[in-house]
Each structure stands twice: as C-alpha cells, then as structure tokens.
C-alpha cells in the first residue's frame, strides 16, 4: 500500500500529464526515494495507482538505470566510465573503491553502507574523472581524495 505521503506526491505528479501513466517515472522515483528501491510489492502499488499492469510498469522500471529493482546500500556511488573520465583515470577510481570497500561495480558492502555502480558521462567532463554520490557530484577525483569524500557518507 502507498503511504499517505507517497499518495499525495503521486497525485501531484499526475497533474503534470494528460494521462496518469505519464507520471510513471516520477512515481517510480518518488517511491524509490521513500523506500530505497522498487520491490515487486512497490511495483504493484504504483501500477495500481497509475491504472496500468505491473508487467507494463516493469517494462519501464527495468529500462532505466536509475530505477533500482534490487536493494541498494544507504549510499550509491556512481563512477563515470565514459571517455573523458577514462582518459583521466576512472579505472584508478574504480580500483580504489575496490581497495577501500572490497566491492566490485554492481555490488554492495556487507554492512549496507555503499553500492557502487558505473554511470555514463555525468556532464562534468571538464573536471574528469567525475563521480556522483547520491545526488552530489565530485570532479577531479583522485584515489586520495576519494577517501576524504567518502567520510561524508556513513
């Protein structure tokens, strides 16, 4: 069941579109903000609200890399692996995460603190290599800087 707050937010989102399903992405991202990820149960809740089938909604949910259909950690680090960051050493950034937290791309630490995912160009190529943690973007990331940055995300 959608919570009262979720329902209110979804009702607001729907107002922007002539058809309810137009708000599918807004709805998925809203519920994900409250619940961390989109479980089968969440999917059903949203589909019912949008008056579409869960299968239909899942074909949208699974298409987008920022919609999580599996649980993620309390924080998600997105490491840009596109060309400008590759030139400037994004592979070293990935290595450093592995050294510090013993996880590969796509994995979550055992204490549930952090998930690391690759991401396409973050649009900060002039400050490559770039990464985004939750909603914060960092540029010119070095292995040393990484350790300091991560202190903020416990």
């Amino acid at each position, binding site marked *: 069941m959608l919570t009262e707050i979720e329902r209110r937010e979804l009702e607001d989102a729907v107002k*922007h*579109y*002539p*058809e309810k*399903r*137009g*708000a*599918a*992405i*807004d709805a*998925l*991202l809203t519920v994900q903000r409250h619940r961390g990820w989109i479980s089968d149960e969440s999917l059903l809740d949203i589909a019912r609200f*949008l008056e*579409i089938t869960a299968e239909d909604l899942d*074909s*949208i949910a699974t*298409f*987008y*890399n*920022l*919609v999580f259909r599996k649980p993620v950690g309390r924080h998600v680090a*997105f490491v840009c*692996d*596109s*060309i*400008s960051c*590759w*030139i*400037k*050493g994004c*592979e*070293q950034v990935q290595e450093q995460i592995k050294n510090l937290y013993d996880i590969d791309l796509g994995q979550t630490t055992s204490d549930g603190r952090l998930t690391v995912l690759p*991401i*396409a*160009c*973050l*649009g*900060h*190529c*002039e*400050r*490559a290599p770039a990464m*985004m943690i939750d*909603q914060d*973007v960092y540029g010119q990331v070095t292995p040393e800087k990484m350790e300091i940055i991560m202190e903020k995300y416990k």
Partner: protein
Amino acid sequence: MNNERPLTQHLHPNGRPRLLREYVSTGGYGSLQKLAAGMVPKDVQRLVGEAGLRGRGGGGFPTGTKWSFVPMGPDASKPKYIVANGDEMEPGTFKDRILMEGDPHGLVEGMIMAGYALDAEVGYIFLRGEYHLSAQRLNQAIAEAYAEGYLGKSLPGTTFRFDLHLHSSAGRYICGEETALLNALEGKRAVPRAKPPFPQTVGLWGQPTIVQNVETLYNIPHIINHGVEWYHRLSRTKDGGTKIYGISGRVTNPGWWELPLGTTAREILDRHAGGMADGIGFRGLLPGGISTSFMIEEHLDLPLDFSSFPPDVGRLGTGTMIILDDQTCPVGFVLNLEKFFARESCGWCTPCREGLPWVAKLLTAFEEGRATRDDLSLLDMHTKWLAPGHTFCGLAPGAMAPLQSALKYFREDFERHIMIGGCPWSKKSAQQRVLV
C-alpha cells in the same frame, strides 16, 4: 563583428544561479514586452528563420524550417507541445548543464517564446535524472515565473497563456533521441518511434510537438530582443549566433567558452584551453560528443559550424570536443566509446543490438592481443552494416562515426596491435593516467 556573449555573459563565475530579480535586471523576460507591442507568432517564426538559428542538439537542423511543419491557425489540432531536450548524455558534453545551472530563467523564457511562436500552450523540460542541481534551480525558476505571471497567465497584450512542467528522467542515453524522448514522457518504454509521422505533426499524445535542444531555446529571446542582423554579427559564418564550445581531455585548461559560431578548433585548443598539457602531444579530436568523426591536425583550421564541414570530415555535433592525445591508445579510446554505445543501445532493432556488442568484442580482442587481419575487416564491415538507413534510429550510425574515422586515420595503430599481439600503450598509458 559583435563581441557579445548573450548566453553566458551574465553568469556568475562561481556557479551561483541567477534568480528572477537578477535575470530581469539584465533584460530578462524582455522578449515578452515585444508581444504587447504587437509581435504576432508569425513574426517570431520569421525572425528565428531569418536569424539562421540551427539546432544545438547535435544535428544542426534549421530551427525555422522545423517550425514551418507545425500546423498553425484555428483548425490546427490542440493542444500543441514544446519540449526542451535536456537529456544531455552525449559523452564529453556539458554545455546545457552550464546554462541550466547558471541561468534557469533563460530556458523558461525561451520556451515561452517558442510556445508563443507555435501557439503551443504546454511545455515540458525533459531533464536527465543525474542533473539534480539543474532540477532544483529550474523548479525554483518555474515557481518564480508562475508567481510573476509569466507562466499560467495571459501574456501582455495577448490571450496566449503557457504552462511549463519539469520532467526529471531516470537515465539511458537513448531518451535524448527525440521520439524515444516522447515515449519516455508518455510513461512508455523509451524506444524510438517510426518516422514519419514526424513529431511536428504527430508527437506527444498524438499532438503536434516540437523538441528542441536546451541551448537552441536559450538563443530565442535574444533573437527576438536584438533582431536578425545583430544575431548574424555574433557569428563568423552564415549560421547565426554564438556556440558554447568545450574541451575535455589532456589539455592545459579543460573548460567551456561561448564563442562566435565558426571559431576554429585550433583557436579554442591553443588560445582558450592553453594548448595540450605539458609533455603531451595532439593526435586528434572528436568535435562534439562521441557520435562525431575524428578530426586530425589538417582539419584544425576549419570553422566549427553547421555548414563548413566537408562531408568526409563529418559534422560538428554538440561542439564540446574530446581530445585524443599521444599517450592514449586510439583503439582503447574507441573501445571505450563502443562499450558505451553497446550498453546504451535500446535493443529495439537487431543490427544495433547485436552489432555494437560485436564491435566492442572485436576491439577488446585488439587490446588483448588476440586480433587478426579478419577482425580488422570485420570492423570495416560493421561501419557499413550499421550505417545510416540500416538501423531504426541514429544511435548506431552515430557509434560508427568515430570507429570509421579511427580506422581511417589511425589504421597503423590497429595494425600494430595485431603485429605485436597487444596494446603498445598498455603499461605506459596506465602509468600516465595516474600522473596526469
């Protein structure tokens, strides 16, 4: 020559956004006053057409021509929509972000005026999900514009009223392709649509729709305020206006600069970016995102615009260049691009879904020293199999532009991988990447 930089001259160097009061104090929302003075939609359309404004999303299509396909008059189907394409996921590209973060009201004003010109009363800003700062600032600008009556109320001297919504997306490069974008906005899986019909007549929810890049829309109020002649004087070539150019890679000062359209790559690289970084040599560049073809030394004096490129040099794309230097393996560089395209393929049509992973696999074989002469011909063949016309949308042909040109200009490097059974840069480049 006109030395103004209308899109960025008022931006704060520290990145602070300009909110309503500040925006208005430098002439913001001035174009709306022209309506009270009797400017009708046809006038706006004519100005934009004569200004020679060409789309800044990568294709360079003349905006006025695109608008001319939208049905006008009392019999035209309503509502009509105007959509700002703020998906900006083309690797190497960060120009729309600079505008939206620094001057969010400029996009609101551009959309109001585009809406007025086409009698389209509803607008959406389609924003990539990762641009959280842009989202926050645009939301604030939209709220301010509603409070001030620029949105949601009849514009001065007219009965036209415009409503504007922000749609934050959730990733996937293909959403920037305009028909996939329309499916995404409708809450459908974001695969492209067949064309024709074109969105100008059958777009969002079946209604006439114009999709325009963010930077394109920022130009419109300035054309209306200052006129066609002024706009042409901003540029060095026959395409009007300025362009936000950018550079990333191993140069002294990576960054962005608003410059006259038609500025050369050499000027931007040497004068603005301070040349290559110490001890690093130039080998080539992609002029505007990764769906463009390599340019090499001999092309550096070409005007970077939408009409001066000889066909065999390709196209400008987004104008944000990526530099290939001599410490970086061209094969590894292209492999990174093709992995991106393979991952971002929407999977709708077979040549792209199957072909791009195959290309990535072939290039991996080069890097790992397993490639043969046959693999080189297979790469050549893919540039034909995935050429324009063989796939459902422009993603796969875009992916072939850097590959085909790399095979042309850096062929010895591919051959060297076969000959020595590995990547000549491998150790060196790993060390360099830590250093620079």
